[in-house]
């Protein structure tokens, strides 16, 4: 029994991504069609040539949510859902399907239309239950990391807040260079630090953007890749884990790590043959749903030794010009977080960067990129890590 991976057996040969943000003039069907056709065009394939589809989105009950708007004629369309890692999950399924030989060409697509709910923040409804599940919002559950991390590594609250603000500042700075991002302007550190509190110590500027958007990828077996494009990108690793939820259940977990992330990163590095991620990874898109999440991810992904990520943040290690740029496209923070689309949006940035198409935010000759996508809450989550390269 082992997680063997599919290193260099599958390639992405086309991608599409809509503008993320407030699409008052578009519904989920419109967004899906925009992203799907952009991906068809990018790969140079006719819609009728795609053999199978995986759709990631919240709350839909079937593949009909994609086959009906796209008028996909009698083909397999699978709806997948894995919290905020849903987009990555659709990609993983599509990659395995072509790797197995079951299909030649598959599409992974994700979409979310959050701005129609009328509510602040993300809303997830539970099945009928006994009323003991609690009423915690997403920013609150992730903010549990902050006091725990600050206390463990001796940061006073003000120092800690500076570190978190620096992460949001960096992501906004990157997003300002991205025409498809929801928020396309730099935000001064002081504005971030003093933004209205949402879940102490997090302010509104520590939270990712509530957003509409869609992104799609076309995948084929590696040997076929150059039939579609001269610059395919290759899957080096795909790892996904779901945890047993012991964080809020068993003493010992200290809310300064995601064990699920450590497990999926370890697996992904093993699949890709990476031993020194801090040196070997050229760039990463990580799940910065809230600023303390990104801080903890640096350590869980092995980018910073334990207890030192905050120093790397302040030193600019993860800036666009830094040694290991993280969230060069602006991340969830600035690009926005339409749940089902986010994992594929992360991959879209890898696609652009590895092909030298990232414009003002182009990183110099990247070779290996990492995407990290998670869903749930600290101690009780699902985590996805991919590694892609040329």
């Amino acid at each position, binding site marked *: 029994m082992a997680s063997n991976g599919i290193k260099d057996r599958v390639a992405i040969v086309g991608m599409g991504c809509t503008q993320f943000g407030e699409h008052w003039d578009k519904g989920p069907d419109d967004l899906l069609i925009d992203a799907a056709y952009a991906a068809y065009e990018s790969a140079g394939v006719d819609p009728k040539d795609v053999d199978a589809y995986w759709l990631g989105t919240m709350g839909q009950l079937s593949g009909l949510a994609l086959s009906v708007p796209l008028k996909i004629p009698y083909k397999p369309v699978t709806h997948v859902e894995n919290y905020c890692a849903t987009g990555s999950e659709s990609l993983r399924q599509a990659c395995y399907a072509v790797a197995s030989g079951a299909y030649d060409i598959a599409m992974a697509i994700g979409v979310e239309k959050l701005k129609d709910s*009328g509510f602040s923040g993300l809303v997830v409804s539970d099945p009928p239950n*006994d009323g003991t599940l609690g009423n915690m919002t997403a920013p*609150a559950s992730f903010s*549990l990391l902050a006091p725990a991390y600050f206390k463990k590594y001796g940061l006073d609250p003000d120092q800690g807040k500076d570190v978190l603000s620096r992460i949001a500042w960096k992501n906004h700075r990157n997003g300002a260079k991205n025409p498809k991002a929801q928020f396309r302007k730099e935000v001064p550190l002081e504005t971030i630090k003093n933004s209205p*509190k949402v879940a102490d110590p997090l302010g509104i500027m520590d939270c990712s953007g509530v957003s509409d958007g869609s992104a799609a990828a076309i995948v084929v077996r590696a040997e076929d890749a150059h039939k579609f494009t001269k610059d395919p990108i290759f899957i080096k690793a795909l790892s996904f884990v779901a945890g047993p939820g012991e964080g*809020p259940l068993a003493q010992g977990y200290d809310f300064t790590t995601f064990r699920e992330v450590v497990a999926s990163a370890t697996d992904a590095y093993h699949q890709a043959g990476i031993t020194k991620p801090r040196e070997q990874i050229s760039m990463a898109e990580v799940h910065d749903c809230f600023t303390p999440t990104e801080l903890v991810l640096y350590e869980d992904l092995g980018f910073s030794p334990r207890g030192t990520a905050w120093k790397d943040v302040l030193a600019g290690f993860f800036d666009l010009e830094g040694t290991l740029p993280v969230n060069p496209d602006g991340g969830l923070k600035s690009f926005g977080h339409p749940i089902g689309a986010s994992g594929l949006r992360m991959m879209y940035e890898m696609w652009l960067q590895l092909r030298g198409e990232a414009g003002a935010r182009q990183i110099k000759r990247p070779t290996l990129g990492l995407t990290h996508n998670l869903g749930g809450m600290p101690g009780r989550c699902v985590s996805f890590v991919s590694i892609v390269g040329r």
Partner: protein
Amino acid sequence: MPVMVGIVSYGSYVPYRRLKRAAIAQALGTPAGKGERAVASFDEDSVSMAVEAARDALRTVPSATIGTLLFATTTPPYAEKLNAAIVGAAARLPLEIRAADLTGSVRAGLPALLQGADAARGGAPALVAMADCRLAAPEGKSEQAGGDGAAAFVVGSEGVIAEIEATASVTREFLDTWRTPGERFAHGWEERFALTQVYAPLLGKAIHDVLAKATVTPDALTTMILDAPNPRAADEIVRGMKLEPAQLGDSLALTVGQTGAAHAGLLLANVLAAAKPGDRILVATASDGADAVLLRVTDAAADYRQPRSVGRLIESKGDVAYASYLKWREILPTEPPRRPDPERPAGPPMFRSETWKFGFVGSRCDACGTPQLPPQHVCVHCQARDRMMPYPFADRRAKIATFTLDRLAYSLNPPTVNVVVDYDGGGRFLCEMTDCEPETVAIGDEVEMTFRRMYTAGGVHNYFWKARPKR
């Protein structure tokens, strides 16, 4: 010789929040009364407060021995549905109990105690809980005079610390205070009528009768507790009986307020805390009639220790602003947050998880010994399947492992404080924290568990447990 019955143990509850009478007066521009009143928090009601008092009363008596449960209140959270059943589930009483709600009059408390005693005379002890959440319209006298609180007694024939020597009751039909179903605030007749024509005579008769039955004279009373809607009725009685000031129990008017159906019980619990063997205590209450009970404190009381006295609960407090109080009671409507309404909890899942949801009973793995909550089938530590034993967490202390202040979640009292707590002896839980000052919450703080009404949705009250700072 008839079987001796009496109070075996008792508990009390005064909510953490206090509303200063001067703060009401300042907001409304009305004359200020002295002192302050206790206010049930936004997540409390008569049932949740009764649970707190009942848990205290059951610290020295095994809940499995209880045969009868009576719950007295004028503010039952459910008009139809047995409120006592919620108290029983939270207090982890056995299935085989007789249970009833006694309501309709602030007089309900003392008769509940006496009915419990009657039930216990023939067999198993009775748990009698009384609680009220007094609500009155702004600017009225009752708003300032009222208070919220609870008391609970186990009455039985073994281990009695205060024997019931005699009782007397009188009941008459008259119109003084009334409220029809659906009304939030009670109406009252002109005070002089009830004072002169009803309370003073009826209270006087009940007290006279109970003393006569026991052949005890007023000077032999160590303490007399009088609970009447109009304090002047009590004054008249005291003058008539020529009692010394030292013989009068504290009315708690300045610190708690008049707690309705719970008040006679709360005053009695307060007096019992300082009682010595041989003391004689007379408790009398008037409203829709009158009841009087004469108690003699037994030798067993010398060894009885009340873990959380009324006095201690009165001292454990924090202020609430009048505007917050009005919001909590939904007297002052507010703009709802842009968040979905809370969802109504579902009947079958609540039924399946009764011991967890209401009793806060988790599980402990028999294979590796790890306590865990909610109760699990597969052990979080060793993955053994179905080796779990029930493991109660309600009375366990815990420490905060981490926390957050949620300003986005729907709450009548934002921010919602969420804490991850680690229990002494093992087990961890993520829950809300209440009765705290959010800015002072810190990792390592000690907490204890309290039974609360989380919210009400679709007419269903959602009860569950929260953490609170040690009281």
